[in-house]
């Protein structure tokens, strides 16, 4: 749809949506959310831009990207398994480190988190591919 208003809004909304999504991802371990939910939201944010601008005429550039997202996501997932192997524990065992952050008691980071980020990116890619494939103009 070539609506000027929507295009105007896209600029703001996209970042708002993506920040929502990242928030959902980051808070996922303690609050509702997580990789899938975040990923889907972020994916939809990108989709929204596609809708607002070039009305389903998705350019080649946009179509190549989803696979990269998926590749990156899956690779991150794979990466999250590696520390447990080196730690000599069963595969997929969560390895946690505490990053000291001023004013807080420290933020815990771990491989499950990496795993969730991997899911996040994969889902972005998947959403993009789904939507763009199905809404393609002939």
């Amino acid at each position, binding site marked *: 749809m070539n609506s000027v208003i929507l295009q105007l809004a896209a600029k703001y909304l996209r970042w708002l949506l993506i920040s929502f999504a990242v928030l959902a991802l980051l808070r996922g371990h303690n609050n509702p959310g997580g990789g899938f939910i975040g990923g889907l939201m972020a994916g939809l944010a990108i989709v929204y831009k596609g809708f607002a601008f070039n009305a389903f005429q998705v350019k080649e550039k946009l179509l190549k990207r989803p*696979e*990269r997202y*998926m*590749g990156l996501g*899956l*690779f991150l997932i*794979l990466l999250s*398994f590696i520390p*447990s*192997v080196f730690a000599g*524990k*069963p*595969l*997929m*065992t*969560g390895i946690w480190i505490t990053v000291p952050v001023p004013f807080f008691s420290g933020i815990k980071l771990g491989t499950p988190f990496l795993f969730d980020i991997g899911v996040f990116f994969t889902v972005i890619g998947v959403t993009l591919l789904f939507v763009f494939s199905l809404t393609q103009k002939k």
Partner: protein
Amino acid sequence: MITFVALPILLPFIFIISLLVFRSDRLAGWLGVFGSGLLILLSGYLFILVQKHGVIALQMGGWEAPFGITLVVDFLSAIMLVVAALIVFSIAIYALRFLPKTIRLNRFFIFFFGLTMGLNGAFVTGDVFNLFVWFEVMLMSSFVLITLGRTKEQLEGGIKYMSLNLIGSLLFLAGVGLLYGKTGTLNMAHLAEILKNDNQAILMNTSAVLFFVAFGIKAAVFPLYFWLPASYHTPNITISSLFAGLLTKVGVYTFIRFFTLFFVHDQQFWHQLLLITAGFTMVAGGMAAAAHYETRRILSYHIISQIGYMIMGLGIFTPLAIAGAIFFTIHNMIAKTNTFLVAGMIAKARGTFELKEVGGLFKQSPFLAILFMVPAFALAGVPPISGFFAKFILIKAGLENGNYVITAVAILTGMLTLYSMIKIWNEAFLKAQPANEYASTPFKKLKFAEYFPSVLLGATSILMGLFAAYLFDFTMNAANQLIDPSLYIETVLKG
């Protein structure tokens, strides 16, 4: 060491990632062959490990069973892994030459590895829900594979294949839910332990029915097999071969796993049901194969017919019978894939799968004839190739246990198999080439990559026959382990 248990899943996963990232077709071919070759080594190693330890279990994430997901490799899983890897390897090579130009190797191998991943996952997992997930991975890949190429036929077959299988998946999921609702656990070993001491276990029958139907659909048993003949002949022969050897057998594997590990109450009902289904499956498949004149259709129906034997072994439910079922499954996976591979070569030589249109191949290529003969004889049960022993064990088990009717059916179905195999042989090889549009196609000499997979599988079939003792020992051990799963349970829950 124990981490290796997860590698049958992770290895294909790694290759999926690489294929997503590197999109070159040339590289994809190498990656495919290399990856599946690695898989053979890996499963071989696991096989050796299992022989040493009996059962090995990996508690994923370090969460002890039944809290986390446990990956378990016992004798049955190990042998299935090895055979699957072998088939996958052959098909990876086969794909290099037999995929049409319209399908990019890179794409094919993504789904190929997806299928492998799901398959291996289903074999090694010790968790009911996880099994569902791997089933879906496998199915999803197969959905895509079956439509790869997008011809009208494929789409039509794809819709049928997909829809009926999805119903199976949903029933499976419902079964998982009910199972969890009643027992509070998903771990197979834990389930077995809970149900062992449960005098109300008969309540599980309803969930067992759902599993029965779900696996029945996947394994293509009698009243549930419609998707198979409607779809298996539509995709490219590489893909058909991949499906033929692997997909339905996973259903059989789960049948064996579930109905030996924890659905062991109310044996009379289940075994009767399994036997009846098995009988009908054998006859229905065999008869339909007799009626057709297209290689892939004949072979597809044959898959069904032979699923019956495997189910029959489970239904008789003696250690020998289960060993026979496992033996038969292994034999069938290899031989069936091989027949499909050869069917592909026939079609490549002549340009059609219609038996009435081809002929004279015996004269033109005795080598091709031998390639066909080995798996065909294996399927028909000609001694001393693998198929004979598989059938012999089942017949022996059936007769010794007093299941005369099903054994008679099995023997008669053997005749049906023979009929179909002879039909293909007569039509494609012995008969002179009829004068038609296909006659002018010059016969091209087979290249190494084209016949090597078939040679590999054929040699395996023969070796399986000659060294049946080792294999039988192994399947017997597997069967004993299944009949008395205490080691399995112990390893998973306390290992």
